[in-house]
């Protein structure tokens, strides 16, 4: 994934909670204006309250083959939100 402001992370072949561990680790180093685009096999429900608690916004959509794309950015980062909208 080479889109501007987008960092890609594929956790679709990992077992729980490794996807969550990797996503939270990646978010800690997210640069201003940057959005994390996660490819996941399942809807990671336990992740969402943690994102909210840590000040991140997210959006999710289905992805083919059966899976989901989750876009995550800092809730107060307008540039990253714009990058997520264009992703």
């Amino acid at each position, binding site marked *: 994934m080479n889109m501007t402001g987008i960092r890609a992370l594929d956790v679709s*072949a*990992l*077992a*729980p*909670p*490794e996807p*969550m*561990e990797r996503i*939270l680790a990646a978010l800690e180093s997210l640069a201003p204006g940057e959005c994390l685009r996660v490819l996941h*096999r*399942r*809807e990671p*429900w*336990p992740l*969402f*309250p*943690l994102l*909210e*608690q840590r000040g991140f*916004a*997210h*959006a*999710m*959509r289905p992805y083919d083959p059966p899976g989901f794309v*989750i*876009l995550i950015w800092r*809730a107060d980062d307008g540039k990253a*939100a714009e990058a*997520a*909208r264009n*992703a």
Partner: protein
Amino acid sequence: MPEPGSGMNSMALSFQNAPPFSVPMRFFLTAPLFAILAAVPLLGVGELPLSRWQPAVIAATHFLVLGFMTMVMVGALFQLIPVLCGGVIPRPRLIAGCVHAALTAGALLLPFGLFSHQPFPIYAGASALAIGLLVFVLVACVALHRAPGRGPSVGNIRLSLISLFVTVCLGVYIAAQHAGNPWVQAGVHGAEVHLAWGLIGWAGLLLIGVAYQVVPMFQITPAYPASLQRYLGPVIFGALLVWSAQLVTPLAGPLLEPAATVLAGALLIFAGTTLWLQSRRRRRVADVTLAFWRLGMGSLALASLLWLLRDLIAPSAAAFPALGLAWGILAIAGCLQAVICGMLYKIVPFLAWLQLQQAGVKGAKMHEFIAAGGAQWQLRLHWLSVLLLLVTLAWPRGAVPAALIFAANFALLQYNLLRAAHTWLVRLRGGTGLVQRAPNSGHL
């Protein structure tokens, strides 16, 4: 593009309703003690060929199915009903505390009474179990009735709770028979129906419903076939109803053989499908949970085949007691206990890690809660326990070494779980964990 947070739905919210870590953990930390206790009555047998009607075997079986198996399953349901089904169990600490106390008291007293032929502990134990488990069934059914979650897993959980209710009712009746109550009629068929509802209905249907979720999730396998998910649970439940006809009419005889064949065939299909899915997993990393599952599914397949082929294997009536005992060893120790051990090694670190995340504790890793070496050793001891228990069918004196290895096996499970709870507590209090780990012990 959806708005931020639009991915949340009732299932996400339901995770917010998950109980505190202490709710399931009190059940998980109590269960191995009962498995150790189950070894005690077996130390006294060995002079006679074993039979499942011997008091020591009945006592050991009930320590296992009540104190270990039901203890873990009830604890897990306090977690699964909110997370998997979206159900809300009100005041989970209070209800879990009452159910846990009743189950612990009943699982101690009833097997003791059955072993020693004393009516008082039988009545007291059966009463405690009836109160605790029926309260649990009621609370769980109300939560499931109001829950938004649907689908085969939730359906199987519902059927397994109904099966628990039937098992408890029949169990209380049979306990009264054992206590010599003049108000109940003696009859051996009640026991056959009771154990079928307990092992296949309560334990089996819950195992199958949970497997639909956890096998693809934790072992990165394809999903179970949709038709199997839809029909397997109802077929098993229907066959159990037919099997129960022997309680009310002696005319049910011709129906029993087809019902038993359907039950064994359904279990064989489930075990075979699970092993097939696991052979197609995407990530081929050695995993102790997978190894426990394989032992469990192999044992279930073997138990089902023994049942289907029993007329060929044991044409003489004399061989039937050993066959019945072999089926029990494979079903309880080989399948259910193995899968439970494997799942505990996934669920306990996952819950501990998740609770720390929710408490804002950073830096914890899931693999630090269970030492890989400890779990591997317990897997080896469990394999050995199952094999030695099977050897006792041909060599009754082997019951003593089998019981000792069995006790050591579950003492190690207890240690591994206590270590996980200790690491969680230390992390929560701001430490980094007191137990040092080898650098290569990162995987379960």
